[in-house]
Structure formats: C-alpha cells, structure tokens
C-alpha cells in the first residue's frame, strides 16, 4: 500500500509528510495538516484526477490517492486500516451510478458504503470523516472541488482520534 500512498496529481512536497506524519508537530511549517486517503476508481475518478492534473487545477496536497479497479473493490477493512494508521478522513470515489465500467460495481458500492457509513456513525465517527462521491473522468474540476471541500471540512474538525493505532504514529 505504501507505494500507492505516494500520492499523485498536485504538488506533493513539503506540506504533508508520510503516513502518520501529519500528526508530528515538528514536520513542515509546524501547523497540523490533515491526511486524507482517497480510494479512486480506475475508470472514472482516477481519470478525473488525471484531468484535474493536466488541466493545471490545484487541490490540496493532503489527499493521497489510492487507485482501485472499482469503488466496489474497496473493503471496509481498508477504510478501518486507513483510520488506524493515521488518516483523518477517508474518501471513496467512483463512477456515477449507471456509468460503471463493470456495469453494476458502483450500485453495489452505493449500498455497501451507505450502510458502512451509517455503521461508522453509530460507532462514533464524525460522519464527515468518511465520504463517498461520484466523480466521472470528465469532471476534473469536480475532482479538485471535492478534494478541496473534504480537506477544509477535515481541517475544521481537527485530527481524527478514533481507532488510531498508536504503534503506527511513531513512524514519521
């Protein structure tokens, strides 16, 4: 996973450090920066990210993109793992309903992650920290907007404290 966590698109230098590094007060300019893990489907949302890049749109470097074959490929365990290892927010992005490369993947994802979002809410996570969005490959501007919006929301919320595994925070 670490290779995929390198991030893509926007300028990645300086502001946000590696996994868990967002927490160490000494990194970068000293201010806390949120870490957002975005699982993007290969066919729509990741391509949307590419378009944002080639269109020279900027979005916050707090977002680390992980490319997955389909939004329904994401296992809830991946989401939990991200929170355990220091993510302050997790985003799953896929094709708009009806546009799935595999016909029905995102329909399944919609049901699964609607329910999973509710479950995380019941267990005490702030609902803003786990989001699902549909971004098509032609929506580079929307990709940048969603990332911007999510980063601002998480910044306002502050660092995530739920399910963080302290063993991972030592790694900077």
């Amino acid at each position, binding site marked *: 996973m670490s290779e995929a966590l390198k991030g893509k698109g926007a300028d990645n230098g300086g502001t946000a450090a590696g996994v868990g590094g967002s927490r160490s007060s000494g990194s970068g300019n000293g201010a806390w920066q949120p870490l957002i893990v975005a699982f993007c489907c290969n066919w729509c949302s990741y391509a949307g990210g590419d378009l944002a890049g080639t269109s020279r749109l900027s979005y916050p470097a707090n977002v680390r993109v992980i490319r997955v074959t389909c939004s329904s490929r994401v296992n809830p365990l991946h989401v939990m*793992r991200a929170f355990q290892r220091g993510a302050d927010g997790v985003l799953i992005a896929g094709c708009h309903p009806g546009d799935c490369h595999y016909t029905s993947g995102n329909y399944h994802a919609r049901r699964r992650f609607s329910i999973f979002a509710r479950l995380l809410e019941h267990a005490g996570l702030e609902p803003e920290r786990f989001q699902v969005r549909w971004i098509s490959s032609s929506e580079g501007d929307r990709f940048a907007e969603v990332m911007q919006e999510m980063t601002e929301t998480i910044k306002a919320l502050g660092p995530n404290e739920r399910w963080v595994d302290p063993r991972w925070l030592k790694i900077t």
Partner: protein
Amino acid sequence: MAQDNLNRDQATARIRAAVTQDLLSGRISLLLGWQKGLFWWRSRPLFARSQQDLERLVWDSFCAVNLSRYLPEELSIEERVGILVKGCDARAFHRLLQDRMLDRERVLLYGLPCPGMLDYRLLAEAGVKEAEQMLEEGEELVIQTGGGEERRPRTDFLLEKCRLCSHPDPVVYDQLLLPPGEPRMDPASRFQDLEARERPTPAERYAYWSGELQRCLSCYACRQVCPACSCRECFAEQQEPRWLGKGAGLNENMLFHIIRVYHGAGRCIECGECQRACPVGIPLLELSRRLAKDIEELYGPYEAGMDPEAPPPLLTYRPEDPAAFPEK
C-alpha cells in the same frame, strides 16, 4: 399462550417420543437438541445418537442456544440430522441454507414454538439463586425470596433477544411438535426501543461504544455462535494480510466488532446469540439491530432468514436506490 396446556415436562416427553422413533428407525442418525448444563440456568446442546442419549433431552426455559450453527459441521460426518428448532434456529437454518452451507434434504426439522428463554442475570437480580427458588406457572414466575413469595410476569425475565423477537414460531419445519404460540412483537415496530436509546453526538456514541468494547477479550465467542458468520477463514485470523494483532487494544477491538457487524449487515437474523454468548456482557445485538434498521430505512423492509429466496439487501441493488451520502 396455547402451549401452556402442556407443562414443560409433558412437552419434553412429547418431543422425546417423536424424535426417539425417528432416531431408532434410522430416519436420522443424529439429533441436535438441548440437555442440562453445569448449572440449572443453563441448557447446553445435546448430540444424541442413541435412546440412552435422548433421556437427557430437555425443553425448558433455558434452551437459548441456537442449534442450527452446529449443522454444517455435523452434516460433514452424519448422513441425516434431526434438529429441534425454535423461531431463531429456524431463521438461522434459512440463513445457512441461503449461504449454501447446508443440504436441505439431509436435515429433518422439528419445530418448537418458543415461549422465550429466561435470562439468569435478571433472575439473579430479583434474588433467585437456586432452581428451587423459581417455579413457572403459565405466564408467571413464582419467586421464593427471603421475605416470602413473589409473583412476577415471565416476560420480565426474558433474554433481550427473546423480548425483541418477532418470530417465536419456527418459519420452517418438517414437523411441528407443539401447538403454535402467539406473536409477541410486530416486525414493523421491532426497532422502537432503539430510538429511545439514541445518542445524539458522535462523541457520546464513541464514548459509549469504546466503554463497552474495551471489555472485549477477543475470545470471538460472538463469531463462533453467529449463524451469519460463514467465512472459511475469518479476517480476524487471516495471516496475509494480517488485519488484527494478537494483543487486546481498544482500536483493534473496535475494528473487529465493526467489521463483524458489517459482515452480518442484511444477513443478520437478529437472534442475539452474539450478545448471549459474550462472557463480558457487551450489548452486541444493538449495533447489528441499528444496522438492520438503517437497511430497512434505505432499502425497504427486510427480515433476514424469513425467505431463503429473497436476496439479502447488500447482495443486490436497484438503479434508483437512495444513498446515505450526497450524490451530486
């Protein structure tokens, strides 16, 4: 309730007579039932292969164990298995059938309408410590305490899973051994108690669940008894990738329970075995029921284990489905 015409001893005798015949004639090679456990307030599973074994069979107010969970394993060695099923065991049977864990033709189901099982913890709170202190008379319990005799309705002492049960009569059986009872809970109103227990803020919910789940010993009894847990290799013990460590820590406990509940989403029959089996008394059923309530809200009424032909909500979709997140 109609079954009060028979007292428990008579009912046990009737069940024993029916199954003895089938076991001796070779129609079944094993009967799954209940026998008394170490304590008077516990009835544990009975695996009867002979008439002698059947003498230990009981049908009392503590036969809460869901027997269907034992079927897949027993069917791997036995030809044809007979099983006593209450409402929840029957729904668990449907659950396993739907997960293709069972061969319907090799199971003989004896239906037992269930009056609800008693919770020892509640009895102990009322001062009952020994079997002699408690007498069941129809819908009432006669309790002997130091001060004298007290009559309390039986429903005061039911296990939570039985208080909330909307299908005490088995939904599937080959033979019904006792007269059917009356429904206790309307399926449509089965989540009403959850609204009363709503915790409004994330901080409150997290405080509540982290408080409960930090008592978790990682014994995985909740998974072991669950008729919806059917993975051959559980993520909790998977080595590659390794999701959980060996130590007990709050974050890993919560991860385990969140994923365990999620794996049962839309498949959980709300039998509450997880909660009953929990050695440290974590109210595990609540999370599963909250999820079942959300599924009903979003994707329409669904009760798992009622109809083996109806697809579980998370294994199907409709293009016009709503989402719990903004779609535009």
